[in-house]
């Protein structure tokens, strides 16, 4: 084998082994409510989500976190730019084929009719089984496994209408996981969760992104964001947005400026933690 052949091997190998880009946004701009003429949420967002990455979206209320996730899922109109899944523009996808590739979990769910936790978790599971699926959901081992991982096994036969907010949130995550798509787009998956279940969520999403999958999630808790994220999108609510590696974006000063409060970064057991100071920005922050 010649040196040239070995060299070319070296050249192409990183390319071949580079994790697949699951989701890509270029020069993405969104407007509030999706309508032209409305307030600009942000402009010029570029991001490339590769397998194994966890992107966390942070920003003040109304900055456009939910709109971004919905736009990435294809259910929110884009003002400018493009979104590609597996390299193909959203408009080029057959909607049911796209459902195989990404699962979107909205912030709010409606539960208008009685349904068990198991039925709700399995809503989008085995989507092609048609009416037969209505008969044999009971003994699906994958559904039971996901319910178990989310500590929902004891609640499996309870009615979703009777759950607490945190329990319902875990059922929503189960529904998203059971859609069996590699890319998860989760809108506020940690809302209503207690401290222990927040850790469970982080562990689960880290494991989910460990394989060929990836996660994009909006979070309010900056510490949780630090523990989950490999990358962060920070929307400032005034039309600006930054996206990049976690350590570059989740910086106390930058966060303080965006949220308008004094934020201090401290080290706890090797992880960065963010503490909000009592004074308004400019006085307490150093």
């Amino acid at each position, binding site marked *: 084998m010649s040196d040239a052949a070995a060299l070319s091997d070296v050249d192409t190998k990183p390319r071949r082994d580079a994790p697949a880009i699951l989701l890509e946004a270029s020069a993405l701009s969104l407007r509030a409510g*999706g309508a032209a003429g409305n307030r600009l949420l942000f402009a010029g967002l570029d991001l490339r989500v590769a397998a194994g990455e966890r992107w966390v979206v942070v920003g003040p209320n109304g900055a456009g976190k*939910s*709109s971004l996730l*919905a736009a990435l*899922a*294809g*259910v*929110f109109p884009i003002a400018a730019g493009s979104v590609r899944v597996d390299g193909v523009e959203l408009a080029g996808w*057959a*909607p*049911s*084929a*796209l*459902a195989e590739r*990404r*699962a*979107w*979990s*909205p*912030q*709010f*769910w*409606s*539960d*208008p*009719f*009685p*349904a068990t936790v198991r*039925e709700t978790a399995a*809503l*989008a599971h085995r*989507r092609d089984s*048609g*009416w037969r*699926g*209505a*008969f044999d959901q*009971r003994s699906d081992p994958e559904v039971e496994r996901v319910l178990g991982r989310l500590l929902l096994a004891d609640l499996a036969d309870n*009615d979703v*209408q*009777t*759950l*607490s*907010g945190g*329990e*319902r949130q875990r059922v929503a995550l189960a529904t998203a996981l059971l*859609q069996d798509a590699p890319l998860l787009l989760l809108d506020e998956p940690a809302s*209503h969760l207690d401290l222990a279940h927040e850790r469970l969520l982080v562990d689960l999403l880290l494991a989910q992104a460990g394989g060929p999958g990836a996660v994009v999630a909006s979070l309010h808790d900056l510490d949780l964001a630090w523990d989950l994220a490999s990358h962060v999108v920070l929307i400032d609510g005034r039309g600006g947005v930054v996206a990049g590696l976690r350590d570059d974006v989740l910086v106390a000063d930058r966060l303080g400026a965006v949220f308008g409060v004094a934020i201090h970064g401290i080290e706890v057991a090797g992880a960065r933690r963010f503490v909000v100071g009592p004074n308004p920005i400019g006085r307490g922050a150093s």
Partner: protein
Amino acid sequence: MTSLRTIVLALAAALLACIVGVLAGSSGFGLASPDIMTSIRVPRVLAGFGAGAALAVSGALMQLLTRNALADPYVLGVAGGAAVGALGAMLVAAAAGMQLSEWGVAGGAAIGAAAASALLFGLLWRRLASTATSSGGDGAAALLLVGVMIGSGCSALVSLILTLADEGQLRGMVFWLLGDLNGATHWEIVWIALAVALAVVWPTARELDWLARGDAWAATLGVPVGRRRRAVLLASALATGAAVATAGAIGFVGLVVPHALRRLGVRAAPLLLPASAIAGGAFVVAVDAVARTVVAPLQLPVGVLAAAIGVPTFIAMLLARPGRGR
């Protein structure tokens, strides 16, 4: 497998109701002369079954579409249109000095139902395609409100017609409004309408369960939201219009039957729709069998007895709705 057992039970109940319905008559219980059997009792059972099935399917569809367990076929205002059509036909025929046949009343009801449906579709066509990213769902709320308004307009017209009608006509009109299978002999149309409605919605019924959880979420699963909602609305309007034209505005079937089935474990739309058809048909046939024998030889309108069962059920449902945890 509770759902499967419930459907088998519903089928058995339907069979039993039809046998009782054919045997029961104002002339006494048991086999009547072949003439009465073929020209009165069997058509009446078939008409009642078809109307009950169509109303229950329509009710299940409206509940799924509006995400409201208290919705029924009449929230669309289509039945109101049918009432205006039927009573209007009676009024016009009397003014012209004609004797109106069963077909004349049914025809008037069908025209009225079609007109109300056309109005509903015309007003909502664009709105139905909207996919609100918030969970509320723009389309569902608009549908409910426009339907209720069309219904209110129709009931004002019905009051006007009742005011204009003379004493002799009033009795027939009021009976029709209550829902009456007395003399219902033309059962074919409602069965055809039911078959068409189920053919339109059943093949994609699982998507209706997704739509009930959120428009945008269903869209991410590949559901063509606008197309599905229009198809459901069309199927529901067709089934309701045909049922009301056949048997009058029988109340509560469309509300109570899907609700009871959900309680018995039939939740998934692909099962709920056919189960509603079977149980709704059985319900009306059974109630009608009681209605025409309980104070024989007088025949009660089936709607009166259906309401006697439906009203307490509705109130129990309203008060027993589980509270939200969040």
